[in-house]
């Protein structure tokens, strides 16, 4: 079963369910934080990298990237809640964030554009 399976509080299974409920709630909380904070950071670093590759001068690239950032954010949140487990959701955010951050620093400090 998956972490979204309904953990209903039927009286006969109360004690068991309380434990499950706790784990379930923690996993949801973890995903909400991953989506809100992790998703935002991913959207941000992805947009910074994207800005360097959009048509026009640097300011236009930034304008394009800002407009597209919300689409990236949306995809990131969908990933977080579609992942099998909260841990996988975090890993799936963390790897691209690290990769894109390094790329973003290289782009903005290296002065490619």
């Amino acid at each position, binding site marked *: 079963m*998956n972490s*979204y399976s309904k953990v209903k509080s*039927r009286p006969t299974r109360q004690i068991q369910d309380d434990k499950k409920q706790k784990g379930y709630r923690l996993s949801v909380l973890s995903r909400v934080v991953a989506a809100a904070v992790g998703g935002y950071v991913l*959207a*941000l670093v992805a*947009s*910074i990298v994207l*800005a360097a590759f*959009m*048509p*026009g*001068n*640097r*300011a*236009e*690239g*930034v*304008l*394009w*990237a*800002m*407009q597209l*950032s*919300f689409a990236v*954010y*949306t995809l990131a*949140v*969908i990933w977080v*809640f*579609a992942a*099998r487990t909260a841990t996988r959701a975090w890993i799936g955010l963390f790897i691209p964030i690290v990769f894109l951050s390094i790329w*973003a620093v290289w782009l*903005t400090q290296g002065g490619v*554009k």
Partner: protein
Amino acid sequence: MKSFFRQSMAWLHTWVGLVFGWLLFFIFITGTAGFFDTEIDRWMQPELPMAQTVDVYDFADQARERLEVIAPGASRWQIWFPIDRNRPYPEIFWQGADSDPARGREQIDARTAEPLVARETGGGQLLYQMHWRLHYLPTRMAYWIVGVGTFLMLLGLITGIIVHKKIFADFFTFRPMKGQRSWLDAHNVVSVVTLPFQLMITYSGLVLMMFTYMPLVAAAYYGTSAEGRQQFISEAFPAREVLEAKGVAAPLVPFSHLIEQAVERWGEGELSYVEIHHPGDAAARIILGSNLAEGPLRSTEQLVFDGVSGDLIAEIPRLTSGAKASRDVLYGLHEGLFAGSVLRWLYFFSGLLGSVMVASGLILWAVKRRQRAEKQGNQNPFGLRLVERLNIGTIVGFPVAMAAYFWANRLLPTSFTARAEWEVHLMFLVWGVMLIHAATRPRLRAWIEQCWIAAFAFLLLPVLNALTSSRHLVQSLRTNDWVFAGFDLTMFALGIGFALMALVLITHNLAKREREQSVHNPSAASLEAL
């Protein structure tokens, strides 16, 4: 795998919709009213004359004379011509003047060249601005709250599309009076029919505020300093160059020759404004702009003149870059300033359906859980009760509060100095009362009573207008005053709508009670589940 994905998206859809649902309803309703912001402004100042037109040459000179008297030494003057629905009267604006107030705005009566005088009111503008400023909250906080709400709305739309199996079949599926099933059908129909509008309005809403929500994208390239920001803005928006005053006096060139060039280029009725930077200074600049609302691309063509010699220095086209154009189009589509009357009504109804989409989603959440709770031996969980009561007090209660705003506009004495603030205070006080009413009355009673209150509050507004102004419905219909007639008729239609809702709730509930008395059938789905 596929079903897991859909299931998790259904979960996400349910919860992002619920958490900010009432705020989204508020944003949708006030934003929808905003499509008629100037019309509401005018209804709320019935003393003002019908919309005016001016001769641009004459009015530019009149405005200049007035600005020289009331705003000497200003860093900026603006003169706006009434060229379409968005600006019914000519206007002047000044900033950084030596006089008091240093910054101000006046609507001018074209017939007398004197400022128009009318009652103090927030008008339709305040109602419209509420949908991203939330009125009482500090600006920045409001922007972020609205931003989170808008982003959750976008997530709600995308997950809603993913969850859907048969998007086209839902166009034609509506099974009324079947409780939960009907609410789901209604939610699907309004969402699917207006989906392009909802996606546009939500995404563009985020883009309008992107400098608040995503400032670090620019900061990564331009730094966080004020100079860096300024450099980014001037590169991205070439029209917005700011010059310093020289501090040397020099006479301002007459406008007529400059206006001639603008009219020649754009045609009659397309010159929207004249903006003067540092009037009377050697560094003066005069900018003439074309109509911002000419089309969905919300941008003006500008002619920049030297304010002393009158030479044309620069022409800034409407279209400077793809990235800016993309933002300008999203901006233009969101505001809909370019919309004529047919498209404007389409905007209005799309916005209303958006509100219905949010409302039906909220109701569906409650109906589903009420049925489940009844099956499980009449439990009455707090969360469910909270949602049910917030639904009543917001979905019907907030429209009542809006009606109260209009009532306050006509009933507060015009001599009362704080009347503009109290119009809004009364609106939120009434909302508070409606929420308390919703929380304390039996559930179905609360729905029915609030629907009746809303019905009478709206139905009687045209009567109130007739009693408190000289522009009653008969008069406005006779004189083709479609701003007033349109407002009165819309309020009347809203009143009828709420009355019908009340009647449906009553008759359906009676039928259900009869059915239950003959055959005891507690699982019968009905509006009782509201």
